[in-house]
C-alpha cells in the first residue's frame, strides 16, 4: 500500500514532498490572497509552506472565503 495523506477530507497518494509543492500542483502559490492552510489541525502560515514536508497520514485543510451570511 502506498503512503497516503488526506486533503480536504479526501484520501490521496502522497506525491508532493512539501506543502508548497502540493499547493503549486493546484495552482496556488504562497501569497495568494484568500487562501489558508491547516496541517493536522493547526494553521500553517504561508511563509512556512516551502519548508514544511508532507508525511504519510498528514491531514491538510485548504480553505478560502466564499459567500456567506
Amino acid at each position: 500500500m502506498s503512503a497516503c495523506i488526506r486533503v480536504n477530507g479526501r484520501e490521496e497518494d502522497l506525491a508532493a514532498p512539501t506543502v508548497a509543492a502540493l499547493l503549486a500542483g493546484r495552482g496556488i502559490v504562497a501569497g495568494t490572497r484568500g487562501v489558508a492552510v491547516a496541517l493536522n489541525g493547526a494553521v500553517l502560515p504561508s511563509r512556512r509552506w516551502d519548508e514544511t514536508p508532507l508525511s504519510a497520514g498528514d491531514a491538510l485543510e485548504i480553505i478560502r472565503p466564499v459567500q456567506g451570511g
Partner: protein
Amino acid sequence: MNDTLTIAGREFRSRLFLGTAGYPNQQVMLDALEASGSDLVTLAIRRISLDGYSESLVDVIGDRAGLLPNTAGCLTAKEAVLTAQLAREALGVDWIKLEVIGDRELLYPDVEELLRATEELVADGFTVLPYCNDDPVTCRKLADLGAAAVMPLGAFIGSGLGIRNPHAIETICARSPVPVVLDAGIGTASDAALAMELGCAAVLLNTAVSKARDPVRMAAAMRDAVAAGRAARLAGRMPKRGFAEASSPQLGLIGT
C-alpha cells in the same frame, strides 16, 4: 449630528452589515452592497475546490467594504477556533463573526461551545462578534469574556420571521456593556427599523436582501429602515397609552 457606530475602536459609517450569500448573481450582490451603504460584509470559510481555483470573492469585493468572516457551520468550539484562525491567515483580518451551532436544522447557537470559543479567540487576539441567543444572561457572559459586541438572533437564520421576542432584545440592549447587533431573522424593512428602535447598535442581515424579488431595492429599503429606526430611537418615542387621547382640541366643537 455625529452618530458613528464604534465597535472595538473601529468606526462604521453604516449601521447595516450585509451578508454576501444567495444573490441571483455577483453583480446583483455588488449592486445591493452599494445600495445598502454597508461598510462591513460577512463571508464564510470553506474548503477550496481541488478541481480548480476560480475568481476570489475577496477580489470581487475589493475595497467596497470591510470583511467579517464567519464560522458558519461549525458545531464545536474547536472547529470554530480553527476556522477563525484560518480566516485570519487567509484575509489578514482578526475580526470574526463567531457562530457555533448546536443543531444543523435550526442553526441555533450552542451556548456552551460559543462561550468556550469566545474565550479562546479573545485570548488569541481576535475581535469576537458572537451570534447568540436572544438571552440577556448569555449576552452578559459573552461580554464578560471579552466579546466586542453581541449579536442575538431575532429569529432562526434565514427564516425571515422578524424579531420574535422584541422585549428580550430590548432588555439585552438596555443591559449590554457592548454594542448589540441584531443578527438573523430580519425579513423586511420594518423588522430592521424595529431592531434599531429597540436599541440595537446595528443590524446584520443577508437573506432578506438576497432573496427579495428585487435585492438592490430591498438593500436600499434596509438602509433607510436602519437609519429611520436609529433616528426614532434617538428621538425617543412617545409613551404608550391604553386609551385614546385626542390630539385635536376638545374645546370649540361644532354643535356643542
